[in-house]
């Protein structure tokens, strides 16, 4: 670690693998600048150091964060996630979003939600929801409305199958430009997909074989390189016809 001078510009670390303890920024050399820190970073006096292993990301003008792939999800406000109703309480639905604690979905957090038209969710209902609040030591709060109070795409997902993946895979599924595997599959087959950043994705199609094929192709593509993905998909799609 000593080999890395603390005064190196952050650009050397951006999109690189970083490990806990790496100092990515020296604040003393960058006066009069505002930077925003995301997950996995910490300010130690005059330096910004890394707290978890992953890839350092940077977006203009000033946002830094560390991305990594996990089996579990750490809730953060603004994420779109797939949740499963675990329990119903008078004020809240308890929803599992793969986080350390169950999330609360207030019964009024629906478009035009009043005390009179509380939706009835069975235990095990699959929901596409938005994380509104996520603080340490508190249960995260969810909502089935967008910021404008509209239902948008949020709500119950019917039929289909929910696949569990890593958080890294669901992030690549949501990336732009679109994930090549998803694009290639979409050209040949017709299916619906909903991706939660919490490492879950839901696929629906008219035929159950399509759902299984799409889901497994996506899961398998995670461990393949770009070229391997191409070959794998070509083979797969040939077999369909």
């Amino acid at each position, binding site marked *: 670690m000593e080999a890395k001078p603390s005064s190196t510009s952050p650009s050397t670390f951006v999109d690189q693998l970083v490990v806990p303890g790496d100092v990515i920024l020296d604040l003393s050399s960058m006066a009069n600048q505002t930077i925003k820190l995301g997950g996995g970073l910490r300010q130690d006096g005059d330096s910004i150091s890394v707290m978890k292993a992953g890839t350092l990301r940077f977006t203009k003008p000033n946002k830094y964060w560390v991305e990594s792939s996990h089996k579990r999800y750490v809730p953060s406000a603004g994420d779109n996630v797939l949740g*499963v109703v*675990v*329990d119903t309480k008078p004020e809240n639905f*308890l929803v*599992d979003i793969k986080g350390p*604690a*169950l999330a609360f979905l207030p019964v009024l957090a629906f478009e035009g939600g009043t005390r009179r038209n509380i939706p009835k969710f*069975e235990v*095990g*209902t*699959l929901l596409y929801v938005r994380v509104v609040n996520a603080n340490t030591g508190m*249960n995260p709060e969810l909502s089935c409305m967008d910021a404008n109070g509209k239902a948008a795409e949020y709500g119950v*997902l*019917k*039929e*289909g*199958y*929910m696949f569990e993946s890593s958080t890294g895979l669901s992030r690549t599924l949501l990336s732009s430009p679109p994930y090549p595997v998803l694009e290639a599959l979409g050209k040949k087959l017709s299916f619906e997909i909903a991706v939660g950043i919490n490492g879950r994705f*839901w696929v629906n199609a008219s035929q*159950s*074989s399509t*759902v*299984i*094929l799409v*889901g*497994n192709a996506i899961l398998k593509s995670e461990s393949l390189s770009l070229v391997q993905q191409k070959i794998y998909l070509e083979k797969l799609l040939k077999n369909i016809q």
Partner: protein
Amino acid sequence: MEQRVATSLIMTLNEKKFIESALLSEIRVDGRRPFDYRTLTITFGSEDGSSEVQLGQTQVIGFVTAQLVQPYRDRPNEGSFSIYTEFSPMADPSFETGRPTDIAIELGRIIDRGLRESRAVDTESLCVISGKLVWSIRIDLHIIDNGGNLVDAANIAALAALSTFRRPECTFGGEDGQQLIIHPPDVREPLPLIIHHLPIAVTFGFIGKENTMVIDPTHYEEAVMGGSMTATLNTNGDVCAIQKAGGEGVPHSVIMQCLRIASVKAADITNKIKNSVESYNTERSLRKVKRHNPSTVVVEFGQQGCGDVAKHHMERLNLGSDESSVISHSDDVELGRKLIENDKMEKRNITAKRFGGGTATWDPYSRGVDGNALRASLASRVATPPEIHKEEPKQEKQNETLSYQQSLVHEVTKIELQTKQPKTLKDAVKPRHKRRNKLMANSSPS
């Protein structure tokens, strides 16, 4: 606490419905057909009697150890075996440490019954002294990852571990032929267990209203299924045990169909286990050849060391004495061996430093870690006079400084020499021991 609700597997209604509806069109969520088994991989550890089995996502480690104990009163000349399961919370959040859960007990019982009732392991060959000393085999099964169908995976892990396990050889010796000698593995080749056949467990799940049958259910299917049935069969198609769990009733015809399918799968799995055990054994024997390579000196003194160890045993071990002393004594030997091993390591390091400037083909690190070479030369360290200690490094140096090709030729000739030498020695010793052993078995009061 409400947060604790999340420990069990959370299944959505969508998933439950989908698994059932997809099965109606004869397809499963992982792309298998109803009667397809997941891919099975069996690997072995560096030690005898350890195995690692992967069945799809499921992962189980099996480990077999043996100990000399007093036999049960009603079976004075039979060894025993027992199964211990370890369900780590790492494998599945619903597993908790501490008291074994119902699943853990059921799993252990199914595997135990398959092995015991079919008499797959020859327990009588584990007897050392009738009514006094027998080998007790302990099978440890560690669940590393739960992807469903733990029973089958754990059963295969247990069988694979049993097939590679070897116990140290025991003979009677001493002046009056009454003393028990436990030969360490580097003195005498340890003996494999006698396994008559491999009872393979094959699990079926019954899912949905129509009780659709699936083989090798995943943990999602396990969460949905109404009932399951585990049939334990061997490659000849003999049914060793059947376990039917869950509330759903199953008609007679379905059970017969299950058994027919299971016998096919059992043959497949038996082949797989046998093949991997065979490749392990060839690898093992190759390793053994290598371990004698460094020097002939080691082998020679190994024999001498054996005599010494035997003498050591004779002094401490009396057949008349109670078993506890036997066990504590073997512990002592273990401890001593470890100490010696440490000592040996240090010495190796020193020699490594001394010869650090040797040829590039010599890798001090791998040398230092090579357990077999250590063990092989261990015996020589036990009781040989100090001048021999000096000789060995010399020999090593010779080997090291030789160029690769030269050393190869050298090795070949050495191997030939070795194979002759220990054989002649052993041939001279073994028959007498055997005769004594038989005499002992006959004369000992049963």
